[in-house]
């Protein structure tokens, strides 16, 4: 079976990591190790910025510190979903294993971060609005995005073979973005018809001061590095799973053949 351009995830650095070959094989490579180390080194800095260096916000007080984890989660979730969307289109065009794996890897990561987005968003709402759930366009469309991502995974898990798995999931992957746009638009319209729309329009209306802005950008950047790192590893997990599946199938073919020819 053709693996398309499957190697491009690691080719630039496909070299002599003898330790991995002889010792414990992993999905790590020099490239991912660099990314992983960057994330680990930045973590203390993220915590320091979020909890110590930045002042409490004038309007929101301490609750702004939750946004330093919420905003990166949102960004990672939506970027991952966008990757799935693009990969689904590319799969429908190229029909390569590579794009199928990119799409499914990003969808799984996306569903984890979408769930985290919802949780931190609800906690923030609890502090700010006094209720965990507001029918806010962003929150609501994120919830439906999450449900659709769950459906995506369920569809993949239920498909009997690789061909139907990639075909069917590419269709759902393609629907992710239109669905989110339509849900978002409709909820926005719906809420703007109510008089209380301004109530939660004000919530982000606070002064973004230099250090706070920097903290946001920094934590988001760390989140993106984490996303790339996760994508590499998850892609390789999927790629290995396909190889294992192929191996089992060719063993089954050989076994059946051996039975037939005396």
């Amino acid at each position, binding site marked *: 079976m053709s693996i398309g351009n499957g190697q491009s995830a690691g080719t630039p650095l496909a070299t002599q990591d003898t330790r991995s070959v002889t010792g414990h094989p992993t999905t790590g490579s020099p490239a991912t190790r660099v990314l992983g180390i960057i994330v680990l080194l930045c973590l203390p800095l993220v915590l320091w910025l979020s909890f110590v260096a930045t002042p409490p916000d004038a309007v929101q007080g301490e609750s702004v510190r939750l946004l330093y984890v919420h905003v990166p989660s949102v960004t990672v979730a939506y970027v991952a979903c966008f990757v799935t969307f693009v990969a689904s289109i590319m799969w429908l065009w190229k029909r390569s294993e590579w794009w199928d794996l990119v799409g499914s890897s990003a969808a799984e990561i996306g569903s984890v971060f979408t769930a985290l987005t919802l949780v931190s968003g609800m*906690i923030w709402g609890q502090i700010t609005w006094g209720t965990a759930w507001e029918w806010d366009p962003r929150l609501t469309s994120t919830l439906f995005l999450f449900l659709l991502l769950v459906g995506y995974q369920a569809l993949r898990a239920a498909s009997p073979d690789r061909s139907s798995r990639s075909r069917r999931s590419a269709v759902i992957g393609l629907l992710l973005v239109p669905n989110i746009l339509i849900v978002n638009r409709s909820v926005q319209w719906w809420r703007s018809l109510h008089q209380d729309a301004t109530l939660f329009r004000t919530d982000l209306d606070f002064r973004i001061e230099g250090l706070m802005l920097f903290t946001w950008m920094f934590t988001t950047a760390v989140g993106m590095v984490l996303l790339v790192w996760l994508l590499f*590893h998850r892609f390789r997990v999927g790629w290995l799973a396909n190889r294992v599946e192929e191996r089992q199938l060719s063993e089954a073919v050989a076994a059946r053949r051996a039975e037939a020819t005396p």
Partner: protein
Amino acid sequence: MSTWAWVITGWIITVVVVVAYVGLVLQRGRSLSRQVPPEEQRWM
């Protein structure tokens, strides 16, 4: 619950889930790597 408690809860949930997911992915990668010969792991 106080604001601080909520903030800390949110952070802890996020960090724990991310760490757990990262661990899961790495673990899956390790167990699958053992079943595939190194020459097929092109990132090596």
